């Protein structure tokens, strides 16, 4: 059920907040073989739901999320509730305050069911967590849900919650959205506060929603977007209306379809679904423009250098990997090998590519690409081959998504079809900075016509 559907049930008296939350908890306790939760907050959630019921009965309605069950990736600070980041390093960490976004969603009436499993330290794409269990993909239990926000994607796909918060440093919202067949938005850098969020790479980290539908993401953005004096990177750009009517048609929209990079080494059934979605957008009145994008391999290398350096700087005191999974430890070791001049040059390149992308936005409104070149890999699959091109599953997952983190543009992933094996395929729509609301509006229109 979507946020709106739950809201209708509550306001029509079909169910109370307590009943909605009880039912969500029952489903999780009976069916969570996907290992989506690290901490389930059943008692707290039921107490919160009872308060929301009393409010509704006395005429207080906090808005679309009033009484709606949600959940948070386990790196959002929650006052008095353990926040692990999926790591033994934080196994006993109990924050003394809430993250800004946790606070805002609670103020909007949402009821948190708990903290979601993830890739350790948000540094990976599989969510095969060695400490809290491998998260499984509800679409196929033998496959990964993607990561690092794997528990968020899986919890939404399993129908436990209509919306869950995630973070995205190199695709960590969009990859699980693609693999699990749900919607996910990496907002513009600075659009959502990161206060009280355990960082991975401070100049690349973004907070955003994963939702059953694009509208669920839009409703979440209306709650969490905005400036925050406690986050120096948060933007003062005025917050738009995220929840206006989705356009009936897409007349006048200029869709950029890349002729280089984005459709190279992409599985045939994935590119077919994405082209089919682009064709659906054309039928709704949009025009397509073939575009050549800047050198994304260089952008990806610059991203890896910035991410590697910033992440390793956080864990510089960890001199051995005894408490950290091997894959994450390797990445931290690699980050320590990057030189100062390389980091500075990678940061300088960002400004060059920023200008190149600004020029691109003169000729198109959105870029349409696959989110991931493949569907969800099998749990044991460390390497994938696409049209004769071999790479690690991690590099495949991040290949088409990580550059956008370096540039800060908003990027939305939404389901656009199925592979030959019946697995979900993700369409990525990238827009110019601070076009988040327009991107979500387009996504809602596309979603309606593809479903």
């Amino acid at each position, binding site marked *: 059920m979507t946020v709106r559907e739950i809201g209708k049930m509550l306001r029509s008296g079909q169910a109370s907040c307590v009943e909605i939350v009880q039912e969500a908890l029952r489903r999780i306790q009976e069916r969570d073989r996907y290992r989506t939760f690290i901490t389930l907050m059943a008692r707290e959630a039921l107490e919160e739901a009872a308060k929301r019921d009393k409010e509704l009965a006395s005429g207080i309605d906090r808005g679309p999320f009033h009484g709606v069950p949600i959940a948070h990736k386990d790196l959002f600070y929650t006052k008095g509730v353990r926040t692990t980041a999926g790591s033994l390093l934080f196994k006993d960490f109990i924050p003394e305050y809430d993250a800004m976004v946790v606070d805002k969603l609670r103020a909007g009436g949402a009821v948190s069911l708990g903290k979601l499993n993830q890739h350790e330290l948000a540094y990976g794409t599989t969510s095969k967590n060695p400490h809290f269990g491998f998260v499984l993909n509800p679409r196929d239990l033998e496959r990964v849900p993607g990561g690092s926000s794997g528990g968020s994607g899986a919890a939404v796909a399993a129908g436990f919650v209509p919306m869950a918060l995630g973070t995205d440093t190199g695709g960590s919202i969009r990859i699980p959205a693609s693999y699990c067949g749900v919607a996910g938005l990496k907002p513009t850098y600075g659009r959502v506060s990161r206060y009280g969020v355990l960082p991975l790479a401070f100049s690349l980290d973004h907070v955003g929603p994963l939702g059953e539908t694009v509208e669920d993401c839009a409703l979440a953005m209306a709650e969490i977007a905005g400036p925050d004096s406690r986050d120096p990177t948060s933007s003062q750009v005025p917050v738009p209306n995220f929840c206006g009517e989705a356009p009936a048609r897409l007349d006048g929209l200029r869709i950029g379809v890349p002729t280089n990079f984005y459709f190279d080494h992409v599985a045939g059934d994935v590119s077919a679904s994405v082209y089919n979605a682009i064709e659906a957008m054309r039928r709704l009145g949009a025009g397509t423009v073939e575009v050549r994008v800047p050198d994304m391999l260089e952008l990806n290398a610059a991203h890896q250098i910035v991410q590697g350096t910033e992440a390793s700087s956080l864990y510089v005191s960890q001199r051995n990997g005894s408490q950290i999974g091997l894959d994450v430890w390797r990445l931290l*070791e690699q980050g320590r090998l990057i030189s100062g001049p*390389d980091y500075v*040059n990678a*940061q300088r390149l960002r400004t*060059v590519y920023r200008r190149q992308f600004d020029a691109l936005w003169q000729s198109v409104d959105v870029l349409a690409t696959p989110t991931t070149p493949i569907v969800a890999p099998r749990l044991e699959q460390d390497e994938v081959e696409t049209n004769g091109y071999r790479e690690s599953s991690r590099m495949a997952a991040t290949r088409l998504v990580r550059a956008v983190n370096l540039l800060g543009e908003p990027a939305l992933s939404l389901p656009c079809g199925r592979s030959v094996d019946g697995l979900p395929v993700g369409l990525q729509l990238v827009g110019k900075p601070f076009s988040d609301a327009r991107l979500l509006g387009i996504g809602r229109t596309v979603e309606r016509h593809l479903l």
Partner: protein
Amino acid sequence: MPESEDERNRAIVDAMRLTLAEAVGRLAPDIEPALHYSPVAGSELAEESEDDQ
């Protein structure tokens, strides 16, 4: 002989650094001379110290 963990990590980082070095070499004329960062951006202290002079 199997590659050591350290050799493996260095090979991965070297590949990234090579791609970056090529980009820097090719784009050198367009690259800003420094990061867009001022240590006194937004600081009122900067104004005060100017007054002191």
